[in-house]
């Protein structure tokens, strides 16, 4: 499974649980659509750190890193080098 698919799966099954969202377009603006709140960001960060072995610092908590699934993928890949 690609990083994008795994991130999408986590968002749909954990963060957006119960919202009726069963898929997320990888370009979809997660923040404008209120898919993720502050607690959701914390959950997603924990998932990224455990799943991909990366470290996410406070400096990384910026909208551009979490705007869409593609943004998250780009962030993870940049961190993994």
């Amino acid at each position, binding site marked *: 499974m690609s990083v994008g698919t795994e991130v999408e799966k986590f968002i749909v099954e954990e963060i957006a649980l119960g919202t009726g969202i069963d898929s997320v377009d990888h370009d979809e603006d997660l923040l404008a659509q209120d898919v993720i709140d*502050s607690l959701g960001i914390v959950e997603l960060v924990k998932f990224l750190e455990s799943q991909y072995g990366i470290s996410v610092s406070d400096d990384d908590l910026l909208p551009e890193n979490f705007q869409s699934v593609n943004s998250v993928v780009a962030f993870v890949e940049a961190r993994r080098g």
Partner: protein
Amino acid sequence: MLMQLLYEQAEANPGQTALVYRDERISYAELVDRIERIAAGLAQRGIGPGDAVGLALRDDPWFVTCFHAIAALGARIVPVNPAFKQPELEFCFRAAGVRAVISDERTAGVCERIVAGFDRPAEVINASAAHDQSPTLDGLMESGTPERLPARQPEEIFVYQYSSGSTGRPKLVPRTHGQCAAEAALYAELGMTTEDTILSAVPLFHTYGMGACIFGGAVSGATVVILEDPHPFLLRRHRALELLEAEQVTVFPGVPFNFRLMAEAPAGGDLSSLRLCFSAGTALPRPSFEAFGERFGILVRQLYGSTETGIISANMSDDPVATFESVGAPLGAVEVEIVDDEGESMPVGELGEVTVKSPAATNGYAEMDEPNRQAFRDGWYFTGDLGRLDDDGMLHLAGRKKLLIEIGGYKVDPIEVQDVVEAHPSVEEAIVVGVPGKVEGEEAIKAVAVPNEDCEERELIAFCRERLANFKVPQVVEFRDEIPKSPLGKILRKYLV
């Protein structure tokens, strides 16, 4: 009456910036012109005195413009949380009897579905032109001819808001033009002037944001800088810090969550222009007060208010460190009295229920006899908060008498959540309680459910998420064979926390 304040500001300082939003800067003269055009456009669509108009917009200049335009027409503003789910929005719009709803691209679809089910005509007006053939605010601006709007009568209804309060459904709180003008005058007591710049980071649909930014801005002639898309604040704190510094913000009304996250932010932050920081919504934890003070050199003062009364008090003490726990002395003509369970006045220093008499307070909930009998007595509003007054007349809060859960500055009625949990076919009985959250001073929502068949926590949370705004959804579900009760049938909540 608020509109007359804006006219005064526009006449005295027409070029003074009223609103800043992204790259847009709107002067008081431009704001007044926009309000007059929108009011004229709404009037052309048949909106007039006494009509309720829903406002389901994010915080932006449209919100402020429509807010004033609706009120100046003599219509009633019904500001709602745009994050509400369809059943919640529908309840708010039906209870207020809205004739129209102003929405943006995020809320347009759900608002159209709701009004389509009404048995009397109501229309959706969109901020964005992208959504079907509905009228738009741009269209109203173009068609409306600006004309000076007359002053309204003090007894006319200005706004309908909703208050949580242990009844299972939010209560409709009407406040008049006179009451809202009185609240604006109370904000004037905080000493804001045209020299001030206020950062708007708390929602404008909420009494606190409305009071501090819309009323506070109008009465002082200050500039209001609107933080665009403040949620999730964890990702927006950099932007908030950037705006505070770049716009030389002097007044920042926030909630404890804002101050904690900003104090923990890794970079940015010359906030030397800030002279007043207010925290409200829930008690400010000492670690957040200290961390923000140490990081930015500004001490956060606690402010107290409610949907029913507007602002009540603010800590304007000369020694904000020694008095940090106090929400201050009542402002202006506001009176606070501490009473016992029989409603009798208690001596200074004694703990009891906080009651308030204020020219800004509502006369009572709309069409709710029993809650009115309980909460409004002889001109006093019984807040349900526990507190005491000290020798200097400063108020210290000490929790709640009413069973409300405080989540990120919002008050959640556990019975509203409980009703949703119990509506699940696998749940026989449920109780919802507040439990300590992951962060000091914050609560989380826990549902304790007695299932009548197999049921999973995940399924129950999903069920709630479809029906409740995210901040009301339980984070934890515990299944039990029975709810602990006393021999008299009283629920023993202490065994559920």
